[in-house]
């Protein structure tokens, strides 16, 4: 028997050849058999890899825990970052625009302007601070009493404090609202103190970059941990691998259980990370709520969303698979002529 016919027999065992008319049906049978063969091999490897891991529970749990911690750290930072960003969004609600009107503006004109502003759909509220009130506030807050008394008359203009609606509080919308107000007939100066909001966003952006860098580093760490574990496993199974290859196993047959092991280590590591992050968030939620209450805030720590959990598990599994693929490749060529 030539090995060619042997190879065919593998995918199509012991069926007498049928003439042309029944070919499509036979092909279907072949595919069906081929698929069930493929599926059963994967099932075998899958069971084998879990069996191997369960035979060394301590070592397996250690590896899974290392992967879990490596995945949990960036995950936790991401979630905390998201929460801080949501606080930042809340804070920017207090953003307001000060309109310094021309000193020549009469009270009637001011009233008309206030009404006009209140009709603007981007503006939630307008407060009028007259020059007298402004002077009073200035005296109370700044302690410039003597200096102000030395001035012949009140140097302060009438001021309107404009609060934008929530929808208009993105940095872009604020800039355009500001430009529009600046062009108002009685407006001397429209001033927006967005600097600190911008700084906060810049800072959060920096932290987010840092978290990404950390996440990538720890991801590489997971890759190496899985790779090293699988490398040790292939060393331990060297004799077994050579026996299996001697009785005719292909490289993919040898590789498959190791790939499954790597995948499961990564996946279980991801589950471990999920549990750790959930526990830490639960532990943090008490103090966070207490702090929020002291600030009269409705803020609550947001947990992990289902999408993030799935992403975490997928990243774990993929890193495990990749790590084992890299590690096992080098050890397959024992007994290669």
């Amino acid at each position, binding site marked *: *028997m*030539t*090995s060619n016919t*042997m*190879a065919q027999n*593998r*995918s199509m*065992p012991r069926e007498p050849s049928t003439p042309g008319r029944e070919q499509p049906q036979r092909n279907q049978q072949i595919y069906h058999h081929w698929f069930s*063969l493929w599926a*059963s*091999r994967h099932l*075998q490897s899958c069971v084998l890899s879990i069996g191997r891991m369960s*035979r060394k529970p301590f070592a397996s749990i250690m590896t899974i825990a290392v992967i879990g911690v490596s995945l949990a750290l960036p995950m936790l930072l991401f979630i905390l970052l998201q929460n801080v960003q949501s606080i930042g969004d809340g804070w920017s609600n207090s953003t307001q625009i000060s309109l310094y009107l021309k000193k020549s503006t009469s009270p009637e004109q001011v009233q008309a302007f206030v009404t006009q502003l209140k009709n603007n759909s981007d503006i939630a509220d307008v407060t009028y601070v007259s020059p007298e009130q402004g002077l009073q506030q200035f005296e109370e807050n700044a302690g410039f009493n003597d200096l102000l008394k030395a001035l012949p008359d009140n140097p302060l203009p009438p001021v309107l404090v404009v609060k934008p609606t929530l929808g208009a509080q993105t940095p872009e919308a604020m800039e355009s609202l500001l430009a529009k107000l600046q062009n108002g007939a009685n407006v001397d100066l429209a001033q927006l103190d967005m600097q600190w909001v911008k700084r906060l966003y810049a800072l959060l952006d920096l932290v987010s970059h840092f978290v990404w860098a950390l996440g990538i580093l720890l991801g590489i760490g997971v890759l190496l941990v899985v790779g090293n574990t699988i490398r040790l496993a292939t060393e331990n199974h060297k*004799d*077994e691998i*050579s*026996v*299996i*290859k*001697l*009785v*005719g*196993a*292909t*490289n993919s*047959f040898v590789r498959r259980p190791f790939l499954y092991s790597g995948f499961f280590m990564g996946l279980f590591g991801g589950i471990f990370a999920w549990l750790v992050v959930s526990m830490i968030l639960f532990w943090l939620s008490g103090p966070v709520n207490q702090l929020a209450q002291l600030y009269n805030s409705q803020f609550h720590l947001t947990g992990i969303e289902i999408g993030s959990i799935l992403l975490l598990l997928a990243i774990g599994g993929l890193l495990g698979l990749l790590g084992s693929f890299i590690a096992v490749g080098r050890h397959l060529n024992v*007994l*290669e*002529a």
Partner: protein
Amino acid sequence: MIRFEAVSKSYGNGYDALSNVSFHLAKGEMAFLTGHSGAGKSTLLNLVALIERPSKGKIIVDGQSLGKAPSRRIPYLRRHVGIIFQNPRLLNDCTVYDNVALPLVIAGYRPQEIGRRVRAALDKVGLLRKEKEFPFHLSGGEQQRVGIARAVVNKPPLLVADEPTGNLDPGLSAEIMSLFEQFNQVGVSVLIATHDLALIGRMHHRILTLHKGRLVSAGVRFADDE
């Protein structure tokens, strides 16, 4: 079944494990390969099993030229040859049954077919009742018979054995050799490397003798090998 044409195998250091070896093992023939240790017996069998490749010459096993076979074809070629070692090389964390089933699992047989064939192979080597045992519970002779069952389970047309009786006492060795003869009687070609001249002298089969990598005697073929 096996044809060597002017085969040489040298390792980088200028040492020739085999030089210019030619012989032919016919289909259904049984032969012994003998020689002092280091004469090249194992190298010759390694070439047949595609564990090593020849430096020069041509090897044809079961109608297939091995020299040109690409690496990815090696697993499929190996499935035509049952290989037996001095140390039976069993998987110690698997039962006797699983050890014997291994080649069939690799080749993708259906479970029912595997069960049928494994039991038939174990029956032939007289270990049917030990299928659930682990290898370390078995004696040396029994372990070797498990190795033989594994080699024959997918009915290869050729069996090669490297010192299969090297670790066994004379009584067990004779038993193992008679097992090989039984397989030979149903048409399997057999090539056994051994230095147990006393044992093989009593058996009527061709003896190939290697000396320092050269084939010094291709032996005489006995009529009952045909």
